[in-house]
């Protein structure tokens, strides 16, 4: 992983892969919220993917849209880890930090690997900006950055110079700074500029002057790299493409993959989709994506609140469409009562939770996995529902399809858990063939199902305990249902003791039975029994996987088990875990899945908890593995 971007340095570091051929590089772009760092990172990601490197990204931005300029809390960063081998995480520590102002330097430099490279725009290191970043003297001049290599020069002035001929105002001209920086980064990693040029032309179609100016800045940054190389300080690095399965690839974020998976799921079920949503970070992107996919039979509805969003989705499901709603923790809390209604009326519904840090408003733009209890247990009454968790942006596609399948096959609401990290992060994705997924077409009840010839029986359960789906509008099958307890078979209002006991049992048995339709739990790496199993769920997949791989490389007896079906759990999971002496559960919460595992299997699962709003580093999990096996 060691990357040496400067020739003199690489000579000093033995054991690295050589000056121009590291296995992987971590780059972090950091600047003001208004500097366009997420855009720069996104385009750099695309260029990385197109060059055939594997990659993982971590966008890290503040909750404020444009916090006051130059402040420490207004810094927005985008980290990308890419390389010529399989990449599973956004990287523990950056090799390169591109800092667009003093605040960006201050908030990010401590993460930088010793010996790493800092590229800083001195044009922003004014007295005022230094004060805003709480620097008494410029860190570039006082020697405090001595453990890193510093390449500090006036990117602002160079940008202004490069776009002078376009007659832009000073403010507009400076906005091209991110493209200048991107140009330099493209040069550093030997990338093709053509796709970015194409993207700029497309983005500024209505304003060709801006397109030209941004392209000029991009080219100038690229040219600067060449010149600087000639002058000595910079070295171009080329990473070979990763040997990957042949096929068609694209980059995908979790929010995109969830949206696509829902569309695919509805198609596999043969249904139109109704999506009810209410804006909330970081879940809104799903509403935005689906609003543009009307031709796939999608209707989107921006409701007046979270409760209306889920209730409208339940109404659509009752009407015979696939109802879907999406939110983040605080919104999911508001939807709780309506989830109970969908459980009671036994209607299909998919609820996507893009988790963020909590409780309350918590950390709107930071990631956490602390809504697991909420998903599994967080409703009034005995209200079981299936829960599925995606491990990565690409995996979110399959998980969304799985959530749709369970919802329609078992007439139940299903929660799909992702998190802020998965929602925003991008990864290369082998474009799936829609025909490779088995369809699960829905049949609606059209004829009276009462063998004795009486009224229709809306709660007559099949051998899996599932009731029929009856669309209003169907002649002769009129019936009344609701959130109040209902009689066996008839669905008529009935809360007598034996009926409530029987229906509670039936609802539980139905959801427990979902386990029979899911694959047995496998082991991602390692043996299926041994000294230690590291059990994860959701977005901790990458760091756990790498940490286990490294530990195994050092001869430790450790396996990685990653659980997709959080509720009901795979039927063999208990036996599997009992085959290990110890069980470690790293989670971005205080140990919620650990508690579920203990409760379900009486295993001595130990927590590794992290709630800093940042994903695990590989090193943190490696250290925990070593401690467990010491």
């Amino acid at each position, binding site marked *: 992983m060691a990357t040496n971007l400067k020739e003199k340095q690489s000579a000093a570091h033995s054991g690295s892969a050589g000056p121009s051929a590291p296995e992987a590089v971590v780059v972090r772009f950091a600047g003001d919220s208004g500097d366009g760092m997420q855009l720069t990172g996104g385009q750099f990601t695309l260029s990385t993917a197109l060059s055939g490197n594997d990659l993982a990204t971590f966008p890290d931005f503040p909750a404020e849209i444009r916090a006051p300029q130059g402040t420490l809390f207004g810094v927005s960063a985008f980290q990308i880890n890419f390389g010529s081998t399989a990449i599973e995480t956004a990287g523990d520590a950056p090799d390169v930090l591109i800092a667009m102002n003093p605040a960006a330097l201050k908030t990010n430099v401590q993460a930088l690997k010793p010996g790493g490279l800092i590229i800083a725009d001195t044009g922003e290191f004014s007295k005022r900006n230094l004060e805003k970043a709480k620097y008494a003297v410029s860190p570039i001049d006082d020697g405090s950055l001595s453990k890193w290599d510093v390449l500090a020069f006036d990117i602002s002035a160079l940008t202004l110079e490069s776009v002078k001929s376009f007659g832009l105002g000073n403010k507009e001209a400076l906005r091209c700074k991110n493209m200048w920086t991107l140009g330099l980064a493209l040069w550093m990693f030997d990338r093709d500029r053509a796709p970015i040029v194409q993207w700029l032309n497309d983005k500024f179609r209505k304003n060709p002057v801006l397109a030209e100016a941004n392209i000029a800045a991009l080219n100038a940054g690229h040219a600067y790299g060449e010149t600087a190389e000639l002058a000595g300080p910079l070295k171009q690095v080329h990473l070979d493409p990763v040997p990957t399965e042949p096929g068609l690839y694209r980059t995908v974020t979790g929010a995109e993959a969830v949206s696509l998976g829902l569309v695919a799921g509805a198609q596999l079920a043969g249904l139109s989709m109704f999506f009810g949503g209410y804006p909330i970070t970081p879940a809104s992107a799903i509403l935005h994506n689906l609003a543009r996919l009307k031709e796939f039979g999608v209707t989107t509805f921006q409701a007046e609140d979270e409760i209306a969003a889920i209730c409208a989705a339940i109404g659509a499901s009752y009407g015979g469409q696939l109802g879907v709603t999406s939110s983040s923790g605080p919104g999911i809390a508001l939807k709780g009562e309506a989830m109970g209604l969908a459980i009671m009326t036994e209607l299909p519904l998919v609820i996507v939770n893009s988790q963020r840090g909590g409780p309350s408003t918590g950390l709107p733009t930071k990631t956490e996995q602390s809504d697991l209890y909420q998903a599994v247990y967080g409703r009034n009454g005995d209200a079981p529902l299936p829960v599925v968790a995606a491990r990565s942006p690409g995996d979110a596609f399959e998980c969304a399809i799985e959530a749709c399948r369970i919802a329609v096959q078992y007439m139940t609401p299903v929660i799909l858990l992702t998190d802020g990290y998965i929602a925003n992060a991008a990864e290369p994705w082998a474009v799936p063939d829609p025909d490779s997924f088995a369809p699960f077409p829905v049949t609606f009840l059209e004829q009276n199902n009462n063998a004795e010839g009486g009224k229709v029986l809306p709660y007559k359960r099949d051998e899996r305990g599932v009731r029929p789906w009856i669309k209003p509008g169907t002649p002769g099958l*009129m019936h009344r249902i609701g959130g109040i307890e209902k009689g066996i078979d008839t669905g008529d209002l009935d809360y007598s003791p034996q009926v409530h006991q029987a229906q509670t049992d039936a609802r539980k048995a139905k959801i427990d039975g979902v386990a029979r339709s899911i694959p047995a739990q496998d082991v991602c790496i390692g043996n299926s029994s041994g000294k230690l199993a590291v059990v994860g769920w959701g977005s901790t997949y990458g760091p756990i996987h790498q940490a286990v791989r490294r530990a195994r490389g050092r001869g430790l007896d450790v396996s990685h088990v990653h659980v997709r079906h959080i509720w009901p759990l795979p039927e063999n999971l208990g036996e599997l875990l009992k085959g290990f002496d110890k069980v470690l559960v790293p989670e971005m919460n205080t140990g919620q899945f650990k508690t579920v595992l203990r409760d379900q299997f009486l295993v001595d699962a130990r927590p590794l908890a992290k709630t800093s709003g940042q994903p695990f580093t590989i090193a943190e999990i490696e250290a925990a593995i070593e401690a467990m096996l010491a």
Partner: protein
Amino acid sequence: MNDMTPIAVKTTLKDWESDQEVRWCPGCGDYAILKAVQRTLPEIGADPAKTVFVSGIGCSSRFPYYVESYGFHTIHGRAPAFATGLKLANPELDIWLVTGDGDGLSIGGNHTMHVLRRNLNRQIMLFNNEIYGLTKGQYSPTSRVGTSSPSTPAGSVDRPASPCAFALGAGARFVARGFDVSKNLTGVLKAAHAHKGAAFIEIFQNCIVYNKDVFEEFAVPKGAEDHQLWLEPGEPMLFAKGTQGIALDTEKLTLKVVDVIDGDWEGAGVIVHDVTNRSLAHMLVELPFGPFPMALGVIYDDPRPTYEDSVLNQDATSRAGKEPNLAKLLAKGQTWTVEPT
């Protein structure tokens, strides 16, 4: 609802009675409203298979169980939101919302506002009994100041909301009033059904257990008629057997009560009801009862395009000429191919 009922279905009142035992208190005003609805449905040619009653929580919200059609008893206050999704999923359904003063104006006030603002095609019957019945008698958002209840033993101090004024303020295009035992209620319900868009009907309903006879000054079957102002489109606003009428006080820009001598309502300046006059509607719903009679019937009726029509038209436009090709969608954006080595 209306233009979607292509074929009128022949039914009788009996066809609309479900096999469920009605569980309201004996003498409750809800019985009369249920009968009025069951009388109205055959008259408008409603099809039980395409009719859906949707309710929230409260005494009134048990209503769907008693009508032989499709029915959904949702959760407290959320019926409008549920019915919005249902209507968008199947615009052919004829939806009746049943709510109360607590369900529709307290816990569900937000949804009531937005369903009216969006103008989804459905009938919204708000049973106003000025009390929480099912939770045993607490004061409600429409209870008058001073209402003594288990939660306000010294009398309530907050001012009541006016359901019809709220509806107009939220942008409703149809506002009407009736009361449980009124023989005119079916006429009001029919007018609501004929309106394409969200039709809001406030129905005064007598809670005989917790708020008995609060409407008796105008709603007693016999004897209170003089305090009822039944509004008819194109007809003068007369009451008290034609001896009094409503005129415009042009100096104060308010309505006033005038005496009508020998039926000369024009001479007395009595105004003619125009259901499309929004300013007039605002004045009518705000008339203080006592100095004025209770305005009843169709107060306002001026249709606008419905939400579902606009949404579904827009969806159809977006879909026009586009093939839903999932394989193409998945491969959208900038892609690259890894060749076999």
